């Protein structure tokens, strides 16, 4: 750490050396009428200069030292008292600090003969306005989504929880990116042990850069080799708010609209924000359907293969005849057929994600017509397979949290393979292995399958039935 010297030339030389070959750094020196030289340094495009011009430059140039409550006698007094007519003002002591502040968009004012510098935090840059979240849209509820700017995001949470117990601790992570990460929690609600574990892990991150919250997620999660994510991500401030109130911990990362929520359990992944916005009786229906669908999304291809090729006696008579009739002329074994169609389906999906918007319709024509219809008409793929694969695909999207669906996509293949070899015996093995894995997994001290395993009778009811909020609180509405 080198402190600021009282010689302006030395300071200027240091800064010019730090910022050589940087076209966006502006270093402006001006001489006041009492021969004092002041130096303004800032990053072009990162600072809002209007207020600086109005409040600092104009008075200094045209009317000398500012005269506030009390006329200031010298420039040094102005530096000492931080008497600059701007709200967010700091005094810098070391040159490294100055460099850092300039890089963040602050304006630094140096004067000759002064061993300190005024740092005016006048950052202002172009940012995206608040929009409706694309990935997690709900029918009812807030239309706000997080944006890339972390201060906008924290303000969205602050606006929702107006209470001093909401704490937001800031961390700077990434050697070069110095990304700001905010750890938000409700003091007293959040588990202290989890909190200190998260803080430790955040401090131990040794990364060059944090581009997205996904980087943080991978650094701090308990088991990176599991296919199940142990941290939830969301771009909805209302979800973050309700999680905070439940005592969960939220990590906001600058530069991404995705906040991280932990701990996260398997069942959280199957819930949707809409569950809490619609009438609770309706929620029972939608949740039940969602559970059935999520089972279908990984099990149906495997069950189909097991039933038709290993245990045809288990299929009802007429259904079996229909399946057999459809299978009559197709060249591939059922297992290969399903596998091919699943690959095609996932391929289409992957292509759809990367496709330029204009090409979307072309893609759907190729996908639906050519691959689906033509394959059946040519007798290469049997019709039930198309039904099974598309039902599986659709079922997957009924899982509300998009990233909670990824593990199901992987299990789908694993189950298909093991069932293709062993029939229902293999299916049972697969399920057992899956359950063993899920039971042994945990997310920041919370077992991944809780409240089912370990069993918690009180909380398990909320998995299927969302009781009205006043019952949840344990009070009777009429009495209070």
């Amino acid at each position, binding site marked *: 750490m080198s402190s600021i010297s009282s010689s302006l030339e030395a300071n200027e030389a240091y800064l010019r050396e730090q910022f050589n070959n940087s076209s966006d750094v502006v270093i402006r020196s001006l001489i006041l009428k009492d021969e004092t030289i002041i130096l303004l340094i800032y990053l072009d495009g990162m600072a809002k200069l209007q207020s600086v011009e109005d409040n600092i430059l104009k008075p200094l140039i045209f009317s000398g030292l500012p005269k506030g409550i009390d006329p200031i006698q010298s420039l040094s007094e102005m530096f000492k008292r931080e008497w600059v007519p701007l709200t967010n003002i700091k005094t810098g002591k070391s040159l490294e600090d100055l460099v850092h502040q300039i890089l963040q968009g602050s304006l630094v004012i140096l004067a000759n003969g002064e061993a300190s510098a005024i740092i005016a935090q006048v950052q202002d840059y172009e940012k995206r306005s608040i929009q409706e979240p694309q990935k997690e849209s709900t029918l009812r509820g807030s239309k706000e989504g997080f944006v890339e700017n972390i201060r906008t995001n924290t303000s969205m949470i602050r606006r929702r929880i107006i209470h001093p117990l909401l704490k937001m601790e800031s961390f700077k992570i990434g050697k070069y990116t110095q990304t700001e990460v905010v750890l938000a929690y409700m003091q007293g609600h959040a588990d202290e042990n989890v909190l200190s574990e998260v803080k430790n892990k955040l401090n131990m991150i040794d990364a060059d850069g944090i581009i997205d919250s996904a980087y943080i997620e991978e650094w701090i999660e308990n088991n990176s080799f599991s296919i199940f994510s142990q941290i939830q991500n969301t771009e909805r401030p209302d979800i973050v708010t309700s999680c905070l109130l439940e005592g969960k911990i939220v990590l906001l990362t600058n530069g991404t609209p995705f906040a991280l929520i932990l701990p996260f359990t398997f069942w959280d992944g199957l819930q949707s924000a809409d569950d809490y916005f619609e009438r609770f009786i309706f929620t029972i229906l939608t949740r039940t359907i969602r559970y059935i669908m999520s089972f279908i999304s990984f099990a149906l291809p495997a069950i189909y293969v097991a039933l038709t090729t*290993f245990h045809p006696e288990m299929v009802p008579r007429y259904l079996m*005849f229909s399946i057999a*009739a459809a299978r009559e002329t197709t060249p591939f074994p059922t297992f290969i057929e399903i596998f091919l169609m699943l690959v095609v389906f996932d391929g289409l999906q992957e292509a759809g994600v990367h496709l330029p918007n204009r090409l979307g319709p072309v893609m759907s024509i190729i996908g639906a017509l050519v691959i689906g219809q033509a394959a059946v008409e040519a007798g290469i793929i049997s019709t039930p397979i198309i039904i099974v694969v598309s039902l599986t695909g659709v079922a997957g999207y009924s899982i509300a949290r998009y990233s909670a669906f990824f593990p199901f996509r992987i299990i789908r293949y694993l189950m298909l393979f093991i069932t293709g070899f062993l029939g229902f015996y293999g299916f049972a093995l697969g399920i057992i292995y899956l359950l063993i894995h899920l039971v042994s997994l945990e997310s920041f001290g919370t077992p991944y399958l809780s409240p089912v395993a370990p069993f918690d009778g009180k909380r398990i009811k909320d998995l299927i039935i969302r009781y009205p909020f006043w019952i949840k609180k344990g009070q009777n509405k009429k009495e209070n």
Partner: protein
Amino acid sequence: MNRHAMLTCITLIILLSSTGCADIIEPNQLAFVIGSAIDHDENGIEVSHQIVIPSKISGNVKGGSSSDSENFVVISATGKDIFEANMKIQRRMSRRLMENHRMLIAISEEYFEKHDISKLFDKLNRDPANNLSNISIMIKGGRAKDFLMNDHPLEHLSTIAAQKEMDFNGMKNFSSRQLVIDYLSEGSRPLVPVFNIKESKVNNKETKQIAFLFGFAILDKNLKVKGIMDDVEGSEVAWMAGKETFQGVTIPWKDGNGTLSFKFTQLKRQIYSNKGDDKNRIILSVKAQAYLIENTTSLDMFEVDNIIEVQKYLNEQIQKELQETVDKVQEWGPDVFGIGEHFHRKYPYWWKSKKGNWEENFKEIDVKVKPNIRIRSFGTGGERLK
């Protein structure tokens, strides 16, 4: 973590290679047997399988043409027992026989006479492919194979037609399982539905050989036919045996002027021993709810007196009819009502001395039918047409 992954891989490889995928059989390598027929043959037994051609049955699928060719094949072979005959059939087939989807086993009357049926059920009981939920019927007169060969004007297959015919007429308790249960329990005797094949004109152009329900065969302890009831008597017997199949009745009114028709629901039956020491006296109580469906008499059913009278008369008539049927069955001997089972439970020691020759002892029992039929509805919305 690495070790874990390695272990998983090794386990999987061993598992997969040790069991292999030899069990895989595609649906187009299977021949679905939907009905089987068993006939007498000099060598022992002739087994016929009715095998579905799936592409002909589900019409919409590509390749399934609506040509005149049949949507099934019947393949038969003879042998000393079912297994041998089955092996012979399998050798002639390009596909593996799949017997799990069988609906029905038809056994010819001739086979019932000349063979011990209980031995037939030995193979059916052992074979896991046979879930015993199929129905067993007897074909009167002709050969059971012919029953399979016939096609049906409405249904795809004659077996499906027979099964549905029984299903829609409320006869649901005639599965092979029920037959085996009745056979194994000492205090009751099985009832087997009987079909016979008749020429029947289906439209102006053609007549077809169609099998219809003829009645019920009453079997004794050794599964020999003791007598065949027609379908009305048969369903009365089934009602009194607790199989809930009776559908309705038409009775002429007292003055011989017009008839009353009733439909019955909620059929129940119970067996009581008469109070007192005489164990041979049994009361067979049957219960039902009746709905008046047709009334061609001059009775005005808005009169309460008439209602009471009709109900009383209905009970009397039913009592008379059922009593006749019971007497007929008792003459033949086999206890299809399960009265023996009642004794077995109520007087186990007494039953032990009787069960040895229950066929004869049953004839001595004095069975009184006591109907309790309540008229629930008259089905009239207003004044009757004059």
